C-alpha cells in the first residue's frame, strides 16, 4: 500500500524530460513534490484503508471460522469449507441468490424500458416538460429506507391504498405473503430507479448528433427505424452506464427489505446474509464474508469491463 503511495512522487520528478506535450515542461520543485505527494497520499490512504483493505479482509476471512468478537488468535483457518457449506447446506443462500437475480432482471427490464420510453417522449420541444421531469425525478432523492416506510402505507392489508383501490373481498397481504412480497418491494424500488434511468437516457439523447437523425430521415427511415437503428446504437456508452448502475443497484439492495421485515420471509438477499452476521442473530464472520466475496465476484464482473471501457478510451486521447 505504501509502496503504491511513494512511487508517484518518486517517479514524477526524476527521469528524462518528458516528450509528452505541455504536461510537464518544467520539473517540479522539492516542496511542490512534497505537497503533491501529500495531496494524493492522504485521500488514497483513507480510501485504501477503509475500502480496499476491508475488501481484502473479506476475502481472507471467508476462509476462516470466527465469531468476530474475540481476538485474531481465535481465528480458525478452514480453507474453502465456508463456500462448500454455503453451496450445499446453508438454507437461505439459494433463495437469496434467486431473489437477487429476480431483482436484477426486474430492474433491467422495467425501469430501463420505462425510463427510456419517458426519456424519448420528453426529448422534444414540449410544454411543461420541466414539470414532468421534476415529478419523475423526485423519488430519486428519497432514501430506499424511507421508500420502504412510505410504500408500507400502500401495501398494508388493512386500509392500505392498493387493497382499497382494488376492492378485493379478501385483502391481499402484499408484504406478508412470501410469494408476492418480493415483487411488491420491487415495484417500490423500480419506482425510484426509473427516474434515474430516464435522467441518464435524456442526457444520452441530448448528446446524439441531430444530423445523424436528419440523415436517416432523408434516407426515408421512419422515426421508429431511426431510433432503433441510429439513435439507440449511438448511445452505447449510456447503455453501458445504465447496465452498470442497475447491476450494482441490484447487488446493493438492502435498506428497503431491512426496513420492511429485516430481509426474511421471502425477502432474503445476499446483502442481508452478510449483514446478519454483525447486526443480526447469526454471528459467523467466516460464512458472512464468503457471501460477501460472492457479491464481490459478481460485481467485479461488471466493474472490470466498465473500467476497461472507460479508461481504454482515455489512453487513446
Amino acid at each position, binding site marked *: 500500500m505504501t509502496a503504491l503511495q511513494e*512511487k*508517484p512522487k518518486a*517517479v514524477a520528478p526524476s527521469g528524462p524530460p518528458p516528450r509528452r506535450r*505541455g*504536461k*510537464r*515542461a518544467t520539473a*517540479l520543485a522539492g516542496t*511542490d513534490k512534497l*505537497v503533491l505527494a501529500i*495531496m*494524493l497520499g492522504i*485521500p*488514497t490512504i*483513507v480510501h485504501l484503508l*477503509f*475500502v480496499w483493505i476491508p*475488501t481484502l479482509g*473479506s476475502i481472507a476471512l471467508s476462509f476462516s471460522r470466527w465469531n468476530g468478537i474475540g481476538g485474531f488468535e481465535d481465528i480458525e483457518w478452514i480453507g474453502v469449507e465456508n463456500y462448500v457449506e454455503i453451496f450445499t447446506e446453508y438454507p437461505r443462500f439459494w433463495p437469496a441468490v434467486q431473489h437477487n437475480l429476480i431483482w436484477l432482471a426486474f430492474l433491467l427490464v422495467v425501469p430501463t424500458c420505462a425510463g427510456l420510453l419517458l426519456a424519448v*417522449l420528453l426529448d*422534444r420541444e414540449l410544454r*411543461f416538460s420541466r*414539470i*414532468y421531469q421534476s415529478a419523475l*425525478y*423526485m*423519488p430519486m*432523492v*428519497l*432514501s*430506499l429506507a*424511507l421508500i420502504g*416506510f*412510505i*410504500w408500507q*402505507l400502500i401495501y*398494508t392489508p388493512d*386500509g392500505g*391504498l392498493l387493497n*382499497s383501490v382494488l376492492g378485493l373481498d379478501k385483502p391481499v397481504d402484499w408484504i406478508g405473503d412470501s410469494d408476492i412480497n418480493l415483487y411488491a418491494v420491487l415495484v417500490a424500488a423500480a419506482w425510484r430507479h*426509473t427516474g434515474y434511468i430516464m*435522467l441518464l437516457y435524456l*442526457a444520452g439523447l441530448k448528446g446524439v448528433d441531430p444530423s445523424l437523425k436528419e440523415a436517416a430521415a432523408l434516407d426515408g427511415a421512419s422515426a421508429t427505424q431511426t431510433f432503433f437503428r441510429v439513435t439507440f446504437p449511438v448511445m452505447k*456508452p*449510456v447503455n453501458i*452506464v445504465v447496465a452498470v*448502475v442497475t447491476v450494482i443497484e441490484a447487488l446493493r439492495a438492502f435498506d428497503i427489505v*431491512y*426496513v420492511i421485515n429485516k430481509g426474511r420471509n421471502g425477502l432474503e438477499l*445476499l*446483502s442481508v446474509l*452478510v*449483514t446478519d452476521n454483525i*447486526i443480526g442473530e447469526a454471528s459467523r464472520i467466516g460464512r458472512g*464474508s464468503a457471501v*460477501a*466475496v460472492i457479491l464481490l465476484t459478481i*460485481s467485479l464482473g461488471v*466493474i472490470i469491463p466498465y473500467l476497461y471501457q472507460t*479508461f481504454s478510451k482515455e489512453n487513446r486521447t
Partner: protein
Amino acid sequence: MTATLERPSAPVVSKKRTITPARAALHAFLILTCLMTLAPLLWAVYASLRTYEDTSVNGYFSVAKSLTLANFAKAWEIGDLPHFYLNTFLITVPALVLTLLLSSMVAFGVSRFSFKLNLVLLMIFTAGNLLPQQVIVTPLWRLYRLIEVPEWISASGSLIDSQLGVILIHIAFQSGFCTFVLSNYMKTIPYELTEAARVDGASVFRQYWQLTLPLCRPVLAALATLEFTWIYNDFLWALVLIQDGDKMPVTSALQNLKGTFFTDNNLIAAGSLLVALPTLVVFFVLQRQFVGGLTLGSTKG
C-alpha cells in the same frame, strides 16, 4: 411518430399553437405517469394530515373529516426528531466538506500531472465507488473496533459507535465517485492555464486552490447537492457501525421510530415526511445541480 404527428395539423390554418390529438395524448400520458409517480408521496401526505380516530373508524380510503398538522407535532416530539436531525447534521456536513476537499485534491493530481500511477490511482477510486457496501462492511466493523481514538471523540474508545467512524467511511466511499467526476471535469480545463501559472512561479498548492478549484465551482456545487442527499440518505453504515440508538442519524433512526409509533400509520407517515423534508427541499431548490451531478457522473468517461 413525429411524421404522423404533423399530418392532422396541416389543414388547420391558424397562427395560434395548434394542439394535435397526438400531442394531447402525449400530455395525457405524461400527466398520468407523473400522478402515478407522485401518488405514494401524496398518499403519505394525506394520511399524515388525518387523525387516528378518523382513519381507525372510516379507514384510510375515505374522505377526511378534518385535516390537522397534529401528527407532525407529535412525530417531532415523540420521535425526538431534533436530536436525530442534529446527529445527521454532525455526520453529513464534515463528511461532505472533507469528501469534496480530498477528492478534488486527488482529481487535481491525476488530471494535471502525469506520473506512472495516475491511471491506476483513478481506477482504484472509480472501482471502489462501485463496490457493494456489504463487500467491505464486515471487516470494516471489526477494523473499527481495533482503531483506538480518545474518549472525547468516542465513548467506546474506538471508532465503533462513533460519529467519526461513520464520517470516515462516507469520505472513503464517496471520494471514489467524486474523484472520478472531478477528474473528468478538470481534464477539460486547458493545460495552458496551470502551465502559465507555473511559469509565473505559482506553487502546486496555489495552482490547485486558487486556480483549479474556482474553475470547478459548478461541478463542486452539483456534487455537493448529490452527496448531501446520498450521505443524508445513508442507512447501512450507521446501522452497522453505530450501536447506540441515540447516536443514529435520522434515516437509520427511522427503524427506532417504527417501534415508538406502534401501529399508528398516520404518525409513521408524518414522521417519514419530516425525515424526507430536507432532501425534498434540496431537490426542489437545487434540482439543476442535482440532475447535473448525476449526468456528469455518467455521460463523461
